[in-house]
């Protein structure tokens, strides 16, 4: 059960080898037995899951089932779910129960998937270690003293420990790809505009994008297939056809031009990680890919630009948490200013406050041109760099994270070092591109992920290449010790 792909689970359900209720119970039991030590879930919705599993079994029996009907999943606690708490990892929303479903929640429900619970995350998706959660840090199943990465750390840990066969995530600057790398799972961040943001609690609207974490690329393809597509409720959603993401079993990548951005293999790269990526690139060559060196000269601007734009947007997006209509509200406010000040001082954690302050500062009159506008210009240059690179390459390959999973608390006191955890992932968000992280080896006993980036709306190329790579390797099938 633990190492079956979603396709295999789907076939098992259809063939009656097991029921959705059995499958759901299996994962609920794992969560019950092993969940607490990882702290991967903020809430477990066992009762609802079993109800949904029963409904899925009826559908599987009576017809009208979707390929994903009856398959359990873990849902990042940033997607609104009607009737279930949506905390976003924050004290501010600890008691918030959404009266509506996010577009992603709707689509997964419509496919008949079974939600096991809501996964832990950095507060409002701000963080790269999952230490910024009001609900406590998540532990990396490969080493409980280490972080799973973030912000979708709960989802990555849950999938790595096989507490769920797949999970949703969101990625603003690497929040799917970096934890996937640190936890040894596959994670895909689609093109900006591919998946509706409706009902996703906003962090940085121009960068946020929903995606999927699972063991393999084929699993991610199946779930992305279900959630991708135009949504008129999201003005940045793109009305582009959704191709068939599942690669044929005999797919090949002969002749695929793999670009290796010079800036991803610089002196800063940990040699052990560099060696893993080079080995993975060699495997791609073996599969018939051509490799070509490319350059993204503005790459060094990506972290500075990101840490202006994302806080700017977040400072505005989080203004709604004012204690007036829902969410945390301070006791007995003396007046309006007191209500705002104490509500927000009590409701937000340190990292959220830091970003709100930075964002407020960079948007202030007199600073706007020097920061926000300049960062937008850098963003355009980064986008242009990618466009040029894609003239010579079909996909780009590099590491997903500069380090393997680091120790809890190791970087917590140093925000800038923490921010650089996303140095390989941020540029992709700034350019709005799709990218995937594929488990590609280990360094010091910890997983290392290879990141593959494609042009806008070419997710299918990522899945095809990922599928071919994973057909020849078994990194994505390896499980952390003690969780097999």
């Amino acid at each position, binding site marked *: 059960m633990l190492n079956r792909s979603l396709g295999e689970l789907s076939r098992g359900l259809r063939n009656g080898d097991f029921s959705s209720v059995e499958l759901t119970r299996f994962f609920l039991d794992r969560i019950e037995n092993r969940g607490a030590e990882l702290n991967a879930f903020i809430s477990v919705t066992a009762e609802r899951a079993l109800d949904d599993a029963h409904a899925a079994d009826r559908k599987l029996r009576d017809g009208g089932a979707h390929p994903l009907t009856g398959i359990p999943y873990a849902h990042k606690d940033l997607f609104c779910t009607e009737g279930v708490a949506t905390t976003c990892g924050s004290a501010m*929303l600890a008691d918030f129960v959404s009266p509506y479903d996010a577009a992603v929640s709707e689509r997964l429900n419509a496919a008949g998937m079974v939600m096991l619970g809501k996964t832990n995350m950095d507060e409002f998706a701000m963080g790269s270690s999952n230490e910024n959660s009001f609900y406590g840090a998540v532990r990396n199943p490969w080493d409980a003293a280490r972080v799973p990465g973030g912000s979708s750390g709960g989802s990555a840990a849950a999938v790595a420990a096989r507490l769920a066969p797949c999970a949703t995530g969101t990625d603003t600057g690497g929040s799917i790809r970096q934890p996937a790398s640190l936890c040894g799972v596959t994670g895909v961040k689609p093109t900006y505009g591919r998946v509706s943001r409706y009902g996703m609690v906003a962090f940085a609207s121009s960068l946020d994008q929903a995606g999927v974490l699972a063991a393999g690329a084929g699993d991610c393809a199946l779930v992305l297939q279900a959630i991708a597509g135009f949504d008129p409720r999201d003005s940045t959603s793109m009305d582009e056809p959704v191709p068939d993401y599942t690669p044929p079993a005999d797919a090949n990548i002969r002749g695929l031009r793999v670009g290796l951005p010079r800036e991803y293999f610089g002196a800063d790269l940990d040699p052990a990680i560099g060696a893993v990526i080079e080995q993975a690139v060699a495997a791609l060559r073996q599969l018939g890919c051509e490799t070509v060196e490319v350059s993204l000269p503005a790459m060094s601007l990506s972290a500075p630009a990101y840490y202006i734009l994302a806080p700017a947007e977040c400072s505005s997006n989080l203004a709604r948490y004012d204690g*007036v209509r829902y969410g945390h509200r301070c006791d007995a406010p003396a007046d309006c200013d007191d209500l705002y000040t104490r509500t927000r001082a009590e409701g937000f954690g340190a990292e959220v406050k830091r970003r709100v302050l930075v964002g407020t500062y960079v948007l202030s009159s007199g600073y706007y041109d020097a920061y926000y506008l300049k960062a937008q210009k850098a963003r355009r240059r980064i986008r242009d760099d990618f466009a040029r690179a894609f003239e010579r390459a079909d996909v780009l390959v590099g590491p997903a994270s500069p380090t393997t999973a680091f120790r809890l608390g190791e970087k917590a006191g140093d925000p800038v070092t923490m921010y650089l955890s996303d140095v390989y992932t941020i540029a992709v968000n700034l350019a709005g591109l799709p990218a995937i992280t594929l488990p590609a080896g280990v360094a010091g006993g910890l997983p290392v992920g290879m990141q593959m980036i494609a042009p806008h709306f070419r997710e299918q190329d990522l899945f095809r290449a990922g599928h071919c790579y994973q057909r020849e390797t078994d990194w994505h099938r390896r499980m952390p010790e003690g969780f097999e």
Partner: protein
Amino acid sequence: MTERWQPVIGLELHMRLKTASKMFSGAASAYGGAPNTRACAVDIALPGVLPVLNGGVLKMAVAFGIVINARIAERSVFARKNYFYPDLPKGYQISQYESPIVEDGQLEIALDDGGVKSVGIERAHLEEDAGKSVHGAADGMTGVDLNRAGTPLMEIVSRPQLASAGEAVAYMKKIHSIGCFLGICDGNMQEGSLRCDVNVSLKPAGAKRLGVRAEIKNLNSFRFVERAIRHEIKRQAALLESGGEVAQETRLYDPDLDATRPMRGKEEAEDYRYFPDPDLLPVAIPPSLVDEVRAALPELQEQMRERFVRDYGLSQADAVQLTASPEMAAWFEDCAGACGGGPQLAANWMTGALSAALNHAGIGIADCPLDARRLAGLLDRIADGTLTGNTARKVFDEMWRTGAGADEVIAGKGLAQISDTGELAAVIAEVLANSEKQVAQYRSGKEKVFGYFVGQVMKATQGRANPAEVNRLLKESLEKAD
């Protein structure tokens, strides 16, 4: 006001756009309603909700831009204006900052001396309204009503080119008329459909440099705009005359005291931290859309007034009155079109009896209990001689009261005019038989007495006798017996 000082006035008008749904959500945009019954998830800014632009408001702004001969941006950007206030659910208002949809327009206003003045309009942009804070809603607490949150507004910013309260009001009335005739604004001032912020400064007559200005916020009637400006000019002139300085500040007009006073609280320079709203893509307004809107532009007030004079042969005064609002004009055209008695008859009745009845009832033409075609039916009965002017008025009153048709009232009350020769001859014979003295006077050459006979006939027939016929038959009878 002293002639030493020259007022410089600019207006920022907020026009509420007449849409069925709000600017960025599907909730009803209608005025009023029980608190918070017209606010959906988007309006109350739940986590995760997103704005979707109501395409109708774009076309409304484009139409306005065309009318004022402005530049219409091919690419317009929505921006967030960030500030905290309990009735601002998102903590920001979606507005426009750097790329407004309409820029650099002109509007001609008529001056009291008969001249015409062109007033520059710097920009017109789209933005959403905030909700309302209801102070003292309960237990000294402030309540928040979000029904208005997200309703569409167009902010219209004039250049500081108005020189008096009168000009400012003429300008505002012109904008009001354009909004109403374009059908983009319901024009209801009581409900805040056109709100005004005024900037006033004084400079020494002939000087180039502008003085320090004060802003008077939130005026919602023409009268208050006029009075607030007059007062503010006086206040500033007195201040400057006595060697004082005008403070750059925001003031409020108190209609009870007919005075302006500084807004409470310390004036803080607000920093709204504008930036492009990342939830909304820049809006493209292709020339084809502008052409489409231009082709569908309705007739505006002046054009309609001229046409009424030209095509219906109405006087300027009647035309002005009948084009006071698009509803009034449409009512007239409906009535005149259906009326056999011609447009002048329709105009007379609308500016006369109908206007009086509407005023008396304190309602507008939109709420008129009488249908335009019904009034036309009444006028037909005047035109074909069934009714005299007198009885027509009685029929009108009955129709107004009951909503019934003219023929129904005439039949029910027996009010039809008597033109039957035999019937009239009998009445006349009786009148003459009872008026020997007057008959003798008439025959002795005192022809003025003729009016007396007419009056008697009318009295006997309760005013229903056909006057022309009465004249003819009376003359005949008096001469016959001669």
